[in-house]
């Protein structure tokens, strides 16, 4: 298969880096939105190669990391109900909630199963008609259409034992929320890659227009990211912020319209609880009333108990770009991938796990 080595070509990489070094003069703080971007940057050591006047910050684009403790507690409470099978993406089961995790709940007897897609959850629902199957729906616009499709398929098949706990979040509103907090002074944003495959590049236009911040949509290969940085540097140096796509093989300005329609059929925009940021209006996807018989929140009575945040964990300010994992007292000591305190250390795309695994110029 093509499309991997081509985007890791050292010669092209050096050319891009040369161009960035030549053009970049102004100090600029860039945020890579996605956890996947952070991983790629660390895995290929890109921070070490960029000019000193460019500072890279990790953003909130890790679906596991931004799931609030309160929402995890709900998922765990749902799992403790009789005759319920919880289905979840893998990373999610290890994230600590207030008092437990799905993994611990499983060890204590809850039926928690890791699936690779909502389609697998549907299969489990078909095979276990005497049980209620609840899919923990996390993720951004990337995964939401597939989960919408699973609900439509369940309806078509008249499956009455399939439910979704929709914790889905959408990206542009949280970008706006972070900018409005005014905590980070950004010159440019490396906009989400896979999310933009679905929503396109238009939804980021307000960032360039209203906030005068450069935007470039990037993929996840090192050349994708270097090209995006190159575009951001060009915009910053010329003083003309706009939205560019540095990931043309995946992203069209208008996005993927059938996927958007699918999402809009099943979900409506509502508030969402972001870890470390709080409840942000119009930043989540809730299941529409028409499909409420698939909505886990509307069909089960649970008491998740009071929410407790892990003491000393600064995942929240890391997700806002205000702090780096290195600023956290727990990092690498109390909090490691084996024994994570906060979600950013659990997810393979979490900032803390990425800093820990790959290290930076300071080592681990």
């Amino acid at each position, binding site marked *: 298969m093509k499309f991997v080595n081509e985007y890791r070509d050292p010669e092209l990489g050096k050319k891009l880096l040369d161009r960035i070094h030549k053009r970049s003069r102004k100090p600029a703080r860039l945020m890579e939105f996605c956890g996947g971007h952070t991983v790629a940057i660390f895995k*290929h050591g890109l921070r070490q190669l960029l000019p000193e006047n460019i500072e890279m910050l990790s953003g909130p684009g890790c679906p596991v990391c931004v799931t609030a403790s309160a929402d995890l507690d709900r998922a765990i409470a749902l799992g403790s109900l009789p005759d319920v099978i919880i289905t979840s993406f893998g990373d999610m089961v290890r994230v600590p909630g207030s008092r437990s995790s799905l993994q611990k709940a499983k060890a204590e007897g809850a039926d928690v199963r*890791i699936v*690779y897609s909502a389609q697998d959850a549907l299969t489990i629902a078909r095979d276990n008609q005497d049980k209620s199957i609840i899919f923990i729906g996390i993720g951004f616009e990337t995964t939401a259409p597939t989960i919408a499709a699973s609900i439509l398929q369940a309806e078509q098949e008249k499956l009455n034992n399939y439910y979704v706990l929709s914790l889905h979040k959408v990206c542009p509103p949280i970008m706006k929320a972070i900018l409005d907090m005014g905590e980070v002074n950004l010159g440019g944003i490396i906009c989400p890659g896979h999310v933009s495959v679905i929503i396109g590049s238009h939804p980021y236009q307000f960032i360039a227009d209203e906030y005068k911040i450069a935007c470039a949509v990037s993929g996840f290969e090192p050349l994708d990211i270097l090209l995006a940085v190159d575009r951001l540097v060009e915009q910053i140096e010329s003083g003309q912020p706009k939205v560019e796509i540095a990931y043309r093989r995946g992203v069209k300005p208008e996005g993927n319209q059938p996927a958007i329609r699918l999402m809009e059929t099943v979900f409506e925009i509502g508030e969402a609880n972001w870890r470390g940021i709080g409840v942000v209006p119009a930043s989540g996807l809730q299941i529409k009333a028409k499909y409420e018989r698939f909505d886990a929140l509307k069909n089960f009575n649970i008491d998740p108990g009071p929410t407790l945040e892990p003491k000393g964990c600064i995942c929240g300010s890391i997700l806002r770009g205000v702090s780096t994992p290195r600023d956290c007292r727990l990092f690498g000591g109390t909090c490691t991938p084996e024994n994570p305190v906060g979600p950013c250390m659990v997810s393979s*795309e979490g900032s803390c796990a990425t800093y820990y695994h790959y290290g930076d110029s300071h080592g681990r």
Partner: protein
Amino acid sequence: MEDKILLAHGSGGKLSQDLIQSFLPDLANPILDKLDDSAVFDISGRLAFTTDSYTVNPVFFPGGDIGKLAVCGTVNDLAMSGARPLYLSLAFIIEEGLPVANLKKILTSIKHAAEEAGVKIVTGDTKVVNQGSADKIFVNTAGVGTVPEGVDISATNARPGDKIILNGNIGDHGIAVLSQREGLKFHTPVPSDCAPLNGLVADMLAASANIHCLRDPTRGGLATTLNDFAGQSKVGIRLEEDKIPVDKAVLAACEFLGFDPLYIANEGKLAAAVAPRDAAAILAAMKRSKYGVGAVIIGEVVAEHPGQVVMNTILGASRIVDMPVGELLPRIC
């Protein structure tokens, strides 16, 4: 004979006898054929002794099955101590309901793998458990071999200056198995690399006895093996990313799943730390050997950053190559 394995096949009675008798022609040798309670044989010299249990889902995968894996895995564990593998034990735990035809297929693989590796199965056991108490079939093998005079291979033996050699593409086995897994099926042209490596190790030792560390990077992948070398020998390891061979299809699968080939399992690969002055001779011997054609020097042992593996990336930066934590899980976003 029944077409499915029944609980009665493990009862010790007539059905058990029939089942065992049906195995024998495939595995026949004078020691096994006696069917005594233990295998009795002469052996002299320094012994290497190892055991491993095998579970794999699915049981049959491109390039092999649990039977081939169970023989090659234990043969390779012996070979990684520099031992010449001689005898294996073979024990099955079978979930009732397993098609007898599948068991036959697994036995045929075991026969072929044992023949290729030049080892004899000399004792065995079969148990059958209730449905749900095991997943289709579990296999355990133990093996003994002899270590030639002058061979001293251990993960504690790496020294600064040693060259790190790998015998070919990494990640083939893990991706071949994953590609067949329920809920994750995807097409990949890459079969598992499952193979007995004792011949390769013998060829390497014939070229030089100055092989300090040898290990087959199975679960946890190359990253884990090299971290073991670095940790146990209290040295650093410096890798060159552009030297590490990965099949394009494996790289592509890793990309869409969000995996790093350094952490993917192999079943026919070895990593070695060898004395620098003998590295060229060992590498040449490997390239002439059936399972060493793709051999390449991927890095070296250094005195700096003891316990840590650091890789120079393709673009000229560097990063830590850490131990993996827990199960590899596909990306969500």
